């Protein structure tokens, strides 16, 4: 009978959803857009019943558009005072005018159609909302899956140490992560990090960061270098406005030392006898600017001491009064606890007490404790004795002949404040020169671009010098025991004294080899036995 166009729209959705559009089942007229602020909308809403467009005297772009689209009669569909649609009719196919009966029929139709249309709209909205929710849940599931797949399944078992972790993700899945990496020479990297942002983007950046970290950890032995490298690789690819904070610590279980560097992450706390201190090292978060350097620090974990690594999820938690948990509170709680793995449960309880039961966790909460439970390998000392090892110098030399003299000189300079007995110092110097020469010649084959890395450390009792070359891929030759008689008789090469000398000049020599490097560790007691 008539060309009639059904038109769904809701005013409050008009800004986001497409503006009202005329749709024709027979496509006789083009679609008409009515802007949500068009005065005709208010008119339609307040004028139930059939409207003849010709008689409508309103300065309205919508009316002009409808007229030019051929609409003759409009019936607003109003449900509970709300305009939910329009019934638009073109001219009668018979070309006669609409009759009073027609209007009556249209009014009845509108009255019945309006609530039905409203219901249909609501159902559709519900479905859309459910779909969006489902999509978001799905996204969170993905984010959680990425995160949980990549987090370590278990903590490493290190004799003499205890490691415990709590990882409590927020519903929205923040970007917290932690990792353990087994390194050469029995060392372990302990990592705690936090990606800004939440959900899938954070999870993806976390996965990338973790992969780069794992690569860098095996290539570089110094935490500062590891972070600098990760930063440089992350910078070009990280989405804008995102970055990663990360604390990277390397535990040497035998020495009890922790070397660490920090890319803008919350400072770990060390629970010591009678208090707490911060492990402070400066550095920018990862992914902000390339070419950053990261300060590196070393400390010794004494028997019974605990280090707490954590993310900002705990310190930035709020209580119902909008008060923040904060660093001072955390530090105080750590200081007041006896330490060990139980510290985590204690802090978790304190956090729960603080936030109350109805806390909607805002961010991931991660806590990791590292506790030294005993001094392994019979190194234990008499009660009260403390073995605090300090790095005195750390440097690299290019692999050029003669550089062992440099090594000798610089080690001697570094040890100068210790005032070692000169006979001891001379022995160590010769041992350093020999070990460095081996590193330059045999390890690095005098390839100038390969560095020999030297670290000088001292504790109350010992001096330790570590000399590493980059020749880890080749087995270190087992030296012939030099036999002076055979050498003098011309039966053995006159050479081959290096390792033998080193062994006999220092109190302890340890050689370790991994895929990258050889490290010779020279240990000399500071006093004659």
């Amino acid at each position: 009978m008539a060309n009639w166009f059904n038109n769904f729209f809701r005013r409050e959705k008009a800004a986001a959803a497409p503006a009202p559009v005329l749709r024709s089942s027979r496509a006789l007229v083009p679609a008409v857009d009515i802007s949500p602020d068009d005065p005709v909308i208010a008119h339609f809403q307040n004028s139930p019943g059939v409207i003849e467009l010709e008689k409508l005297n309103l300065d309205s772009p919508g009316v002009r558009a409808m007229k030019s689209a051929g609409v003759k009669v409009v019936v607003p569909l109003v449900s509970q005072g709300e305009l939910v649609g329009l019934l638009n009719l073109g001219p009668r196919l018979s070309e006669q005018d609409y009759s009073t009966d027609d209007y009556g029929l249209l009014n009845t139709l509108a009255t019945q159609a309006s609530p039905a249309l409203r219901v249909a709209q609501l159902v559709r909205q519900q479905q859309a909302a459910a779909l969006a929710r489902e999509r978001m849940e799905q996204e969170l599931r993905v984010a959680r899956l990425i995160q949980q797949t990549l987090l370590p399944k278990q903590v490493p078992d290190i004799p003499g140490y205890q490691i415990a972790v709590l990882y409590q993700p927020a519903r929205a899945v923040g970007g917290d992560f932690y990792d353990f990496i087994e390194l050469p020479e029995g060392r372990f990297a302990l990592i705690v990090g936090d990606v800004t942002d939440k959900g899938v983007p954070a999870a993806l950046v976390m996965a990338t960061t973790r992969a780069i970290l794992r690569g860098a950890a095996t290539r570089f032995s110094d935490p500062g270098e590891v972070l600098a490298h990760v930063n440089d690789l992350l910078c070009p690819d990280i989405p804008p406005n995102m970055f990663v904070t990360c604390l990277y610590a390397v535990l040497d279980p035998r020495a009890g030392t922790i070397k660490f560097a920090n890319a803008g992450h919350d400072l770990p706390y060390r629970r010591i006898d009678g208090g707490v201190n911060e492990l402070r090292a400066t550095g920018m978060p990862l992914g902000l600017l390339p070419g950053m350097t990261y300060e590196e620090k070393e400390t010794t974990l004494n028997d019974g001491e605990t280090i707490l690594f954590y993310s900002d999820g705990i310190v930035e938690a709020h209580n119902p009064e909008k008060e923040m948990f904060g660093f001072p509170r955390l530090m105080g709680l750590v200081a007041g606890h006896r330490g060990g793995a139980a510290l985590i449960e204690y802090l978790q309880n304190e956090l729960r007490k603080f936030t109350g039961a109805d806390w909607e966790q805002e961010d991931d909460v991660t806590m990791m404790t590292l506790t030294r439970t005993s001094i392994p390998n019979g190194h234990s000392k008499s009660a009260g004795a403390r073995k605090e090892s300090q790095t005195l110098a750390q440097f690299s030399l290019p692999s050029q002949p003669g550089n062992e003299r440099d090594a000798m000189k610089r080690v001697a300079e570094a040890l100068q404040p210790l005032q070692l007995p000169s006979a001891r110092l001379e022995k160590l110097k010769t041992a350093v020169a020999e070990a460095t020469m081996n590193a330059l010649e045999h390890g690095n084959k005098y390839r100038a671009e390969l560095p020999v890395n030297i670290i000088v450390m001292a504790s109350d009792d010992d001096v330790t010098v570590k000399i590493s070359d980059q020749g880890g891929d080749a087995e270190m030759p087992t030296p012939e025991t030099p036999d002076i008689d055979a050498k003098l008789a011309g039966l053995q090469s006159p050479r081959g004294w290096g390792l033998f000398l080193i062994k006999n000049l220092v109190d302890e020599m340890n050689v370790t080899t991994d895929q990258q490097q050889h490290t010779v560790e020279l240990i000399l007691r500071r006093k004659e036995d």
Partner: protein
Amino acid sequence: MADTLLETSVRQENGTAVIELKGEIDKLSEDALNRAYAQATQMKPASVLLNFKNVEYINSTGIALIVTLMAQARKSGVKFIAAGLSDHYMEIFKITRLSDFMTIYPDEATALKSK
């Protein structure tokens, strides 16, 4: 040839060829040391004395060079004498047992007098 940090001078004292060494004995010293020793043996001495008084550094390669000279001396029946070793290098000569195969005097004068 790379620059050696070893200076040598050779002279004869009563049938002993004295090689005075100054500087460092390492890989780079090989030629200088061998030349000095050849010069000394040309004197057909009964003994060769190496004076280490002014030697600051001997590394394992230097030890090997000394061992080579000792082997030559032994072959040609020349007595090998060392003098002027610092405490540290004395210790190293003991560790390597070089000291078992040469006579060591605290200084050159004592060595020459003792003959």
